[in-house]
């Protein structure tokens, strides 16, 4: 009689179970190989998620950010970004993270009577000056890059 202290090990999988397991393993491993490679096709070089390029967060310094919105009456207003969103989001915006910049501009367009929103990141390094403008109702912000003046 078997001891109660022992239980049988997991049974050897049958041929069918092996084929199913093999298919899952193949798909899972393939996915893990392909996801980091997607970095090569990303338009945003600062987006290193799921790539294993680094085990630390982004260390790129944040640029100085300013934003304005244009109302239907033609009036332009400066936006105080730091009062609207958390500092971490401001860091993302300052690092030109496109998805966050787009979402921020879209969010400003939700206010009544806003025609256009513009955001400028002034960086002292090779990133230069980046201007983003979104015509409210549009899908994606237009980006202009200029070399830093200094």
């Amino acid at each position, binding site marked *: 009689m078997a*001891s*109660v*202290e*022992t*239980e*049988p*090990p*997991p049974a*050897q*999988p049958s041929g069918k179970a*092996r084929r199913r*397991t*093999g298919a*899952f*393993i193949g798909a*899972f*491993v393939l996915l*893990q*190989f392909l996801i*980091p490679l997607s970095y090569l096709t990303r338009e945003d070089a600062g987006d*290193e*998620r*799921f*790539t*294993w*390029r*680094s*085990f*630390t*967060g*982004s260390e790129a310094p944040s640029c100085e950010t300013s934003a304005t919105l244009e109302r239907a009456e033609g009036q332009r207003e400066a936006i105080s970004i*730091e*009062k*609207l*969103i*958390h*500092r*971490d*989001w401001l860091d*993302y915006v300052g690092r030109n*993270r496109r*998805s*966050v910049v787009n*979402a*921020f501009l879209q*969010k400003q367009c939700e206010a009544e009577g806003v025609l256009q929103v513009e955001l400028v990141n002034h960086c002292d390094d090779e990133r230069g000056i980046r201007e983003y403008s979104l015509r409210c109702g549009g899908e994606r912000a237009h980006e202009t890059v200029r070399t830093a003046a200094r």
Partner: protein
Amino acid sequence: MKALERYWFGDVALARPYLVLRFVLALLAFDTWLNMMPQGAKYGVGAFNVAHFPWFDGFVPSSAFYLGVLAFTGVLALSQALYRPHRIAIVLIAAGYTLGWACSLLDSVPYHYLLSLYLVCFVFFPMLSARAAFSRSDQAPRGSVAAYVLFCITTAIVYFYVAAWSAAEGQPYWLPMICCVGYLIISMQDRVELPALRMAAPLLVAAPLAFHFLAPQEGWLPMYMIGIALIVFAPVDWIHKLGRALTRPARSLVEERAEGGGIDERASQVFYLSLVGLVVAPMISMFVDLPGVKTGCTLTAIAMLFVMGRQLYFTPRLRPLWRVASLFGGCFALWITMTASNARFDYYREGALDADRRGDHDAAMMFREKADRYAP
């Protein structure tokens, strides 16, 4: 058997998947409470959010949602580490943990994605009891565990990419590449026909240890990876002895002897006691005083009820009570961790600083009052 099949379905010492699963679940619980929860005050600020994946766009997680998900995940993970894990619970932990980081770019810690991959592997691990993994004899039980091999391959792929990107940038890449090769071959070390690999294993472990001691890394990644490396690379005799020592209480107390089958007269007592336990355990979270945590712990109790299912009434043994005890253990651990650490203070202090900066004085005052209460 073909070579590839032998690689995936060959024997491994069952002690390894048993210990890896529990080690990662236990560490994950404390990681979520101590490192992720203090960041919770960032969530929902200004009703602005960008998720990791487009299908989450439009959803703005609040602080309470984020903390609730983390409390749920952590308590369930620790309860599964304390008592025999259940596959449904592992699925829920994987879903909860992934939801926790994926719902916002505010959590962009690289290794959280790795832990989600590990949790997917764990779903397919055998849910071993201490008795199954550590027999009374000195002979370590072995069995085919393809998911454990997949776990090692997942780790190898991470090191492969670390090496590849380093090589592309002209930096030294040999150390992560040795880690990659080590994880590719080490899952075969428990097979009797490969004694040479067993001899090399203690040397191969030096690579991941050196890498994680030397390279800059965020959060608790080095703790996870060093612990995993020690379990995966250590000689089977060591692992078996360590596991036997750690599980002695479980094997002597929890795993009571199987005496026949069928329902005995204890079943109804066990049923009512378990139900009472499931109601009482989440009440411990009332003392934690963080938004969403009560809901998270209540959901954990509901998940536990779901996990136990028919077992709750139809088991003739005390297994449901041990499950409820593990839930109590998880809730107590959360409470003690929050009381003994600065996590709660950090949450309220960060909230106060951010609210001050945004000029939201009412919120700042509320956060500051709580921060003062929990200041170390």
